[in-house]
């Protein structure tokens, strides 16, 4: 089984074709050289279709759409944009499109986009024309939910759709927390109970948290996992209280990081890539010794996977969209990209690693198509 990785970088998008043994066949690109590419996502409902979230340093944000597996691209006719502000309202403008999620399988052509400043947008025509999700963007509580952002601004990300119900949605906001809608986005409620927010005056606040990455398990959609600014969590619905499964990580490693990646079929198996969250938050591999950690029991225990990764002086940073699986149910292939422009492949569930590309620009996202 071959695989194609789409790599979004600060300077364009790259395509990495791999053979069945995960050897690199061809690295091609850059496409849109000089564009800041936050996300490139394939449509599982129509695999020839890909969407790319892009902007340049000076031009406004946009979305590109391909209907031939990334050979050619067309710009969205109406990129995500907030509605015109009424008199006296804060005028909001999309600064970047940060996240893309294909809609429910029953809603062909539907996509969601998360932006900075915090906004949620929906397209019903395959990503050509985007409309604000007013239920979130104009929610009366939104100004309280989202009061400040990351150094890169407020970020709406981790848009998840319950495969059993197209109207059941989750989003995450850095910084703001996890939010749930059960009516297709018309109304939203915080879902952060149990998550630490030790940077807030009230550590038990109902919102204001910093989820770095949240994922709903496609085969067990009552289960969500979260890599948060303050730990690794699991939530089993209909429960509402997150459990800090990162407590089982080695104490000297901690449970801070950006991505969290789920096994394609086993809801007990999850991978994380811990980063240094001590003191001034270096956000690099801890002590310069990168490692992936895997649980196969839903977070009761974790195992370090570092065979093939550098043993010392490797100060990697891996961003929230920059780690994925190849979607195989057996002998899962894992991939991650670093801000230093390297792509690493982990064979057999991450048992052994090797670098498959280097010298790329700063990597923002790695997705498998």
């Amino acid at each position, binding site marked *: 089984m071959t695989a194609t990785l789409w790599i979004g970088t600060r300077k364009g998008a790259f395509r990495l074709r791999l053979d069945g043994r995960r050897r690199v066949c061809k690295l091609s690109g850059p496409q849109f050289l000089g564009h800041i590419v936050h996300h490139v996502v394939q449509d599982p409902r129509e695999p020839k279709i890909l969407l790319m979230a892009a902007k*340049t340093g*000076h*031009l*406004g944000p*946009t979305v590109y759409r391909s209907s031939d597996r990334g050979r050619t691209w067309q710009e969205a006719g109406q990129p995500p*944009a*907030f509605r015109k502000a009424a008199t006296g309202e804060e*005028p*909001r*403008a999309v600064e970047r499109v940060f996240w893309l999620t294909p809609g429910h399988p029953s809603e062909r052509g539907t996509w969601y986009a998360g932006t900075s400043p915090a906004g949620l947008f929906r397209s019903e025509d395959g990503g050509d024309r985007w409309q604000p999700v007013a239920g979130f963007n104009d929610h009366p509580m939104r100004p309280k939910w989202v009061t400040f952002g990351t150094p890169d601004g407020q970020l709406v990300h981790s848009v998840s759709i319950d495969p059993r119900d197209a109207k059941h949605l989750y989003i995450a906001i850095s910084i703001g927390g996890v939010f749930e809608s059960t009516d297709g986005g018309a109304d939203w409620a915080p879902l952060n109970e149990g998550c630490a927010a030790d940077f807030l005056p009230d550590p038990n606040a109902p919102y204001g948290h910093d989820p770095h990455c949240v994922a709903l398990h496609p085969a067990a959609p009552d289960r969500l996992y979260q890599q948060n600014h303050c730990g690794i969590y699991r939530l089993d619905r209909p429960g509402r209280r997150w459990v800090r499964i990162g407590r089982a990580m080695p104490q000297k490693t901690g449970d801070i990081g950006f991505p969290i990646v789920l096994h394609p079929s086993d809801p007990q198996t999850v991978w994380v890539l811990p980063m240094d969250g001590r003191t001034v938050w270096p956000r690099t591999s801890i002590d310069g010794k990168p490692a992936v950690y895997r649980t196969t029991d839903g977070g009761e225990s974790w195992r370090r996977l570092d065979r093939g990764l550098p043993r010392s002086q490797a100060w990697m940073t891996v961003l929230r969209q920059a780690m994925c699986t190849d979607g195989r149910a057996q002998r899962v292939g894992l991939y991650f990209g670093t801000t230093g422009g390297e792509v690493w492949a982990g064979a057999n569930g991450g048992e052994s690693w090797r670098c498959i590309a280097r010298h790329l620009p700063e990597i923002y996202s790695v997705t498998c198509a």
Partner: protein
Amino acid sequence: MSCTVRIPSPLRSYTAGAATIAADGGTVEEVLASLERRFSGIRFRMIDEQSRIRPHIRLYINTGEVTALSQPVVAGDIVHVICALSGG
């Protein structure tokens, strides 16, 4: 009213590589609308959804900086679109 718009290189993917475009309009807003009709999508890359000039874009009429899209443009004017970018 016909003027000339100077297109910076980051926007020439919309104009098939053309660095100057003749456009119509009595105001900057009308000139941009004229551009948008011919080169769909180009306006939004320069002007946000609140009709503000984007932070790293500057517009000039001849040598005077544009501060409002309602500013008049007269025949023979040159509208410059400048991409002001810093950083790596």
